[in-house]
């Protein structure tokens, strides 16, 4: 669904990532992991077409994403940005209905006749129907995260990208969110998700892209990427990888002895 070739991503003169070649395919849940400031969100924005790479191309279904109009791009790729202050006095239904914006002419105020059913289905998918008339400001972080997922669903894009959808969520909320993303991939979507929590990623996704040292250090099945040497290199701290009884892999930072002089 998304093919990125030889990307160089930069803000002005500061190159964040170079030599990036990644693919996102249908039916696949892919995590982008790496330390703070490594360029995970930058990569996600480039894949979504909202950031123009300094070099290289991003193809969405074979078409360069930057050649698409903003609305055409939004019909192909849904991007759920990391936490950003939304106005609190928007109803859940109105927020989700904005996912249909790219499907009508930009000057048209109201949705198409079929939009109501699509919005209803998106709300039902994330179990937000009882919350439809509530204002965003009355929701918990987890509920709000489900609103953004429903908004992306209403976009009906074949590729959906999520930037840290589990930040501010407790453990059960984080796993519940990943379960929703997994089920969307099961339905045929290509899902890319930036995650901070390595263990959550290892337990939930089909494939991992590890970002560090200004490039993609590894890209493959969880077992191939979730290795002590790669994680240690990416995070600059010694990280051991263990297997739990049920075979799940967990990353454990090794405690450094501190010597006080």
């Amino acid at each position, binding site marked *: 669904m998304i093919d990125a070739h030889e990307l160089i991503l930069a803000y002005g003169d500061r190159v964040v990532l170079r030599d990036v070649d990644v693919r996102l395919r249908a039916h696949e849940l892919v995590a982008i992991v790496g330390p703070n400031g490594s360029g995970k969100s930058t990569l996600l924005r480039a894949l979504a077409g909202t950031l123009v790479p300094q070099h290289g191309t991003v193809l969405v279904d074979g078409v360069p994403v930057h050649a698409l109009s903003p609305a055409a791009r939004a*019909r192909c790729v849904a991007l759920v940005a990391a936490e950003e202050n939304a106005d609190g006095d*928007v109803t859940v239904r109105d927020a989700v209905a904005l996912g249909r*914006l790219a499907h009508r002419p930009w000057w048209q105020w109201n949705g198409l006749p079929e939009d109501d059913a699509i919005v209803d289905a998106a709300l039902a998918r994330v179990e937000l129907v009882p919350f439809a008339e509530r204002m965003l400001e009355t929701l918990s972080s987890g509920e709000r995260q489900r609103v*953004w997922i429903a908004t992306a669903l209403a976009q009906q894009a074949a590729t959906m990208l999520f930037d840290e959808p589990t930040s501010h969520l407790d453990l059960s909320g984080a796993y519940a969110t990943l379960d929703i993303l997994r089920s969307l991939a099961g339905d045929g979507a290509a899902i890319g998700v930036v995650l901070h929590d390595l263990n959550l990623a290892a337990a939930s996704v089909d494939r991992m892209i590890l970002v560090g040292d200004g490039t993609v250090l590894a890209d493959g099945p969880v077992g191939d990427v979730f290795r002590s040497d790669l994680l240690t290199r990416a995070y600059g701290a010694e990280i051991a990888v263990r297997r739990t009884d049920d075979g799940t892999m967990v990353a454990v930072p090794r405690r450094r002895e501190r010597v006080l002089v």
Partner: protein
Amino acid sequence: MAITLRRSSSLLALVVVLLVAVAIGIAVGAVTLPLRVVLAALAHPHASGDVAAIVWALRVPRVLIAALVGAALGVSGSLLQSMLRNGLVDPYLTGGSAGAAFTIAIAIAIGLPTPTYAGLAFVTALATTVGVAALARRGRGISPERLILAGIAVTSLFAGLTTLIIMLAPSAGVSLSILSWLGGSLVGHGWTDLGWAATYAVLGFALAATVVPSLNAIRLGDARAVALGVDMERTRWMALVSSSLLVAAAVSVSGVIGFVGLIVPHLVRAMCGADTRWTVPASIPAGATVVVLADMLARTAAPPIELPIGVLLSLIGVPAFLFIAFRRRRTA
């Protein structure tokens, strides 16, 4: 459903209040006419006599100009506040009005005909607003705080330059007419001025209507709006051009009237909620009502003197601005 009902009934209430305000505005003045007489005169536009002359030649165009100015400033404020997601922004504070006023002061000083005012006001209002937005640019977005600071600076600059124009005017009479026009005044305008201003206002309203869906998406945050397919550059430009057309329409017939663009969006949001599909259209009757009532007060508060409406609205607007600013700080 409950929300839609509340919004529709609020909009309807605003329209009804406007119609009542317009009727009272036509009836009240130096010579107060009974409402029955006003309605009879309105029903017979080609009748002769003093009442018909007062109603059709003086009161109706004046009240319609007041309504147009209020509607234009209200929608302009709504657009700017939605675009920048900041309730402290209005065309007065972003320098657009001051820029337009400066050019019109020059036009009066050199004796240009009245129909040129709106065009000149549009060009300067747009140039000023774009300049202020450029000064406020921070990274990829516009910083609301910088916008207000830049707006205040540019407004001061134009105020100084306008004072210079008044001092350099060819005669005391010209200086006085610039001054009285600057104070915000609806005196001495007729159907022709209304026609010119309405042309710019209608263009401004039409452009405003096209950006409403995008402005609504911006309520979820700029990055989310972009992800939803909003063309931010187009939206910003069209909102700025629309706002400048509306400011030009208002300033060309009324001089500088502040705070309407600031207060009206707050009033409308309190009644209809913050959905721009409701706030922008509701700003038309709300803004119109505010200026029609303020003009009526200006005409009748201290007879036989007519108070400048701009001064009157400042007296109401400054405390309202401070209230909004301080309440915002408390809730921030």
